[in-house]
């Protein structure tokens, strides 16, 4: 999946990637791994980016037990309900938004090809 950009309100390019499963969604999801905030998933329609912001506002928070769980969720490879039941990953805040994002990433996640580098912290 190639990186693509979207026009922001300010007119500058924003380095989001295309995520067709997130169409219609807008918001920010903080990601916490092993109790430590590691970044924020910024969703703008069908564009998504993982940015290193750990202080800005967030609509939802994905609390992941470990690094591997976070990567699987971002790649759309982990069922979020299974992850929640096993306490590997849970959502806080706006769980509707968080659930839509995680389920949406199951559809051609732009993070699928990541080998652990790139956007991922």
């Amino acid at each position, binding site marked *: 999946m190639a990186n693509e950009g979207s026009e922001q309100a300010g007119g500058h390019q924003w380095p989001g990637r295309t995520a067709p499963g997130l169409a219609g969604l807008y918001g920010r999801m903080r990601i916490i791994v092993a109790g430590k905030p590691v970044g924020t998933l910024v969703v703008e329609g069908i564009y998504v980016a993982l940015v290193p912001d750990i202080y800005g506002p967030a609509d939802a928070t994905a609390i992941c037990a470990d690094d591997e769980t976070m990567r699987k969720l971002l790649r759309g490879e982990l069922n979020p309900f299974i992850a929640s039941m096993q306490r590997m990953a849970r959502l806080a805040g706006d769980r509707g938004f968080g659930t839509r994002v995680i389920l*949406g990433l199951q559809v051609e996640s732009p993070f699928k090809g990541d080998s652990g580098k790139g956007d991922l912290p």
Partner: protein
Amino acid sequence: MSLDTVSILDGSTFVVSDRRGDLDATPIDNHGLFLEDTRFLSRWVLTVGGIRPKTLSVDEQAFFKVQFFEAITTGTVYVDSHLSLLRRRCVTGGFEELIEIENHAKEPVDLEVKLAVGSDFADLFEVKDKLAKVGELYSNVTDGALTLGYRRNTFVRETIIKCDKKGEISGEGFLFKVRIGPQSSWSVTFDVEARGRRADIEDVESPRKTGLLQQQGHGRGLDEWLAAAPRLVASWEPLHKIYRRSLVDLAALRFEVGIAPGALPAAGLPWFMAVFGRDSLLTSFQSLAFAPELSAATLRALAVLQARTNDPFRDAEPGKILHEIRLGEMTAFEDRPQSPYYGAADSTMLFLILLEEYDRWTGDHALARELEREARAAINWIDEYGDRDKDGYVEYERRDPKTGLDNQCWKDSWDSIAFADGTLAPTPRATCELQGYVYDAKHRMVRIARDIWGDAALADKLDREAEELKERFNRDFWIPDRGFFALALDGQKRKVDSLTSNIGHLLWSGIADSDKADLCVKHLMSDDLFSGWGIRTMASSEGSYNPIGYHVGTVWPHDSSFIAWGLRRYGYRAEAARICRAILEAADLFDGRLPEAFGGYPRSKTGYPVEYPTACSPQAWATGAPLLVLRTLLGLDSDGKHLIVDPAIPQPLGRIELLSIPGCWGRMDAFGRAIGASDE
């Protein structure tokens, strides 16, 4: 629900006890404290001086609290008991329980009060099978609190029990050695907390409330709920009890899933306190004229959980609306597919049907706009995935033979789809009501596409497809020599020729041609299908008929309520009224609360509706049945601007007034009376 048990609940947390208040789970007695499809407490047995108290009375004060009055007696009639006992229990994300012992004697008494506790942390799916646990059970006592726990890798569930009196605490329970003075009392309060998968997050986001706060909140919530519903005035007195019972039970079955605002109806107590697509959608439809907010919450929650991917284990395909979610251990480790499971071939069409009905009833067009993406995906699912072999009909067949549901229509038991001679129909099965739902969904979406989404091309396409389906269906499903529609087309495209209640759903959906509808009505009102209390799921003339067969002869009140609504649609007012009257009279004999199903025995034989042994009660769509019946009797509908009232009320029901009905008109009243009934 057994008459020997007492159940209280709050959302998906519920307690099932015996009539003493004890939990003593066995494979037969499914007692326990349950949360998230897991039993957090399987033993909670009180003894006083080594004796289990005898129940004097049980006061089920509300759906979330109960009181047990008991005596500590040896059982002989010659010795009066001088010790009485009160147990007061309230659900609070677990429960709180007050135990108070009164000594009525003139002498003090020394007693050992013992509470034996335990938990098997059984998944709801294994409760009846007593399966061996894979993980480790543990217990510990810390700071006066007993913790019972279960751990399997990262799957951890705990029950924490605290009390306000000092006693001996062990892994098996609590022991108090007390002296109660003459004409005095002693009490202890227990706090039982069930810690599920999100306990640590909920500690921060929504801390657990104390019992008193919880009771106040519940009481206020119930009062507001009842006050918001239309007010009923009826000359047939039992109707008041039935109406109130339906509203209170519907309130009890509401629960918040946390992924969308508002509460939606769970399917039923005790084993179906979970999100079920079909059940929540049909119940919301039945109650739309009374509590439209249930429809909005149901549609939003199911939209969030709509399938995005193709997943054979879960019978999921993009755009499909779920069948069921479960949160217990067997689902967590994928022994079961309910995470969520999408094995329902009708829920996607029912989603579209409810969306349009809600839009037209309430005038809240914002929801149809908000859910446009999901609704379009649902429309796409019908032809892209629902019609598996592209023969123009939606059919189902489980894709995982080990865990999938054999039948994915509302009659989802294994033997429900059979030929007249009793032979099971091979899959894939295209049941007739599914085609009716497709017709109705597409027909309804024409208006939404054109007026709300501004997509005339889609509207025209759906309109054309719906009419083509109707023509095709009336040709391919009709059985000329029996004069009704086939129950299904089987895997070899043969007509499954049993006479069943499914043909009534074809009237609700509007897919039946008028001449064929007339013949179907004659069958529906015949002695073979109409028991006198409602429409049998299968006619008594058929090979598989069994009056206590789950989907092959019992009467399901919700089924009959939709059939009555369908009869009204086709102009059969008297027939609809007859069924409505029968359902309400059955409800009266069930003390206002209709069970999920009851026996299909003829009324002429029994004089009362015979209970079905394992029916859920309260069950959501049975609870909704009297509401849809009321709507049918008064002929309530919406044209998108006005409330339409067209009553057809049978003589014994006299006069019915439904006041302050919410809808796009604001609030309006409706009146109706039987011809010849007085105004009194």
